[in-house]
């Protein structure tokens, strides 16, 4: 069987796997963004205890491998609660990416000039309002490029949930390899799928970035 034959024959079987990878990546990203926002706010707060908790979380998560975190959440937790492969894997991805996303948000919030919040406060806006209306919109805009980068890492890292048996792209490739014995072809093919997904994600991130950069320049047409 040639490379091309293997590609076309396994293609229909890959649909579900592609969908599964997208799903678990999305779950991981959504959880990661929520966790990231919460911990970023804790880190820019003035309360030492919140900063301490956030630092602790970020250090533990960044200091341990993702595959270990996935195994803890799936094999480790199963004696107390069985979340299933999708939820365990998705939560592990979210918790892992949350630590990195927290640092991205913290950096972008702190990069907004102090004069911005001072101007907002001087107009009578309270902390929450000045954050929501003035600081965060500017911070989020600056966070888009590093966030996009992190989303791409999350997409590729989602392959690690194959090891708890979740049937996504990489898991699928392993199965094809063991049933056909065509290791090189199987893994190159799955590599191509990842590459295409990453390129699509990159395209979307670039468009969002360009869209957001368009304002702040020139005239607003109503």
């Amino acid at each position, binding site marked *: 069987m040639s490379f091309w034959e293997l590609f076309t024959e396994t293609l229909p079987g890959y649909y579900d796997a592609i969908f599964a990878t997208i799903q678990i990546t999305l779950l991981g990203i959504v959880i990661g963004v929520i966790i990231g926002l919460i911990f970023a706010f804790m880190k820019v707060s003035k309360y030492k205890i919140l900063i301490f908790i956030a630092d602790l979380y970020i250090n533990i998560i960044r200091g341990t491998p993702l595959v270990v975190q996935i195994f803890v959440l799936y094999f480790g937790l199963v004696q107390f609660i069985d979340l299933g492969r999708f939820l365990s894997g998705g939560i592990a991805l979210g918790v892992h990416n949350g630590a990195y996303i927290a640092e991205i948000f913290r950096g972008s919030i702190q990069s907004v000039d102090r004069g911005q919040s001072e101007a907002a406060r001087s*107009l*009578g806006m309270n902390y929450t309002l000045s954050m929501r209306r003035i600081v965060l919109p500017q911070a989020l805009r600056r966070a888009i490029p590093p966030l996009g980068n992190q989303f791409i890492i999350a997409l590729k890292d989602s392959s690690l949930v194959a090891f708890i048996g979740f049937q996504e792209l990489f898991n699928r490739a392993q199965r094809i390899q063991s049933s056909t014995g065509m290791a090189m072809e199987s893994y190159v093919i799955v590599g191509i799928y990842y590459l295409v997904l990453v390129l699509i994600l990159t395209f979307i991130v670039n468009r969002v970035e360009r869209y957001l950069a368009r304002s702040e320049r*020139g005239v*607003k047409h109503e």
Partner: protein
Amino acid sequence: MSNTKKMIEVKKLNKYFGKLHVLKDVDLEVHESEVVCLIGASGSGKSTLLRCLNFLEMKQSGQISLEGKEIDVKQDDLNKIRTRTGMVFQHFNLFPHMTVMENVIEAPVYVKKLKKEEAVKLGKEYLEKVGMSDKVHVYPNTLSGGQQQRVAIARALAMKPKIMLFDEPTSGLDPELVGEVLGVMKELAEEGMTMVIVTHEMGFAREVADRVAFLDKGKIAEVGPPEQIFDQAKEERTKEFLSKVL
């Protein structure tokens, strides 16, 4: 002057940055419709004093009364108090993600809860006042420094403050743009706005100020009408400072 309302009264104000004692027992009174210019070398505490009046910096001791009422930092709603004192910054601090009009109506809509149409009407009025009504829908970074500062003044005025604070409003501007901003401020002074202005523009201070206060090392060294400060300063350090800048 004594029979008009005291808009600002500062008594024995002390402010530290860490160990650095930046304001030392400062007393200052500003009456209604009065224009007071704060002058002094950089590091003399004039900007800090101004920022204390708006509670962007918190005093360590002393009293600050606005419109006859002593402000208790712990009890009073500082956000509400800040709506009554407009502030203009050296670096304009316009919101870059909003158009000129959006900058001006932001606080009226979100703080005062004005209807958007009402706020826009108000915004047009104040943008016209500062001569920026032709730039309503552009973003700040397409404007010159002088234009940005005029928008910042309109933004502060749109909250209808009782007092306007200016923190070196022309220091960040190219020399040829200083005039347009000072012009707007002069007009404001003529309309009777109570103003406290930190400035290096001595010509402007002489022309527009009712009183000039010279700060030196965290203290008000001398205060009086501009003619007195500029022509017959009593204090040696005032004369010395003025000889350097005039």
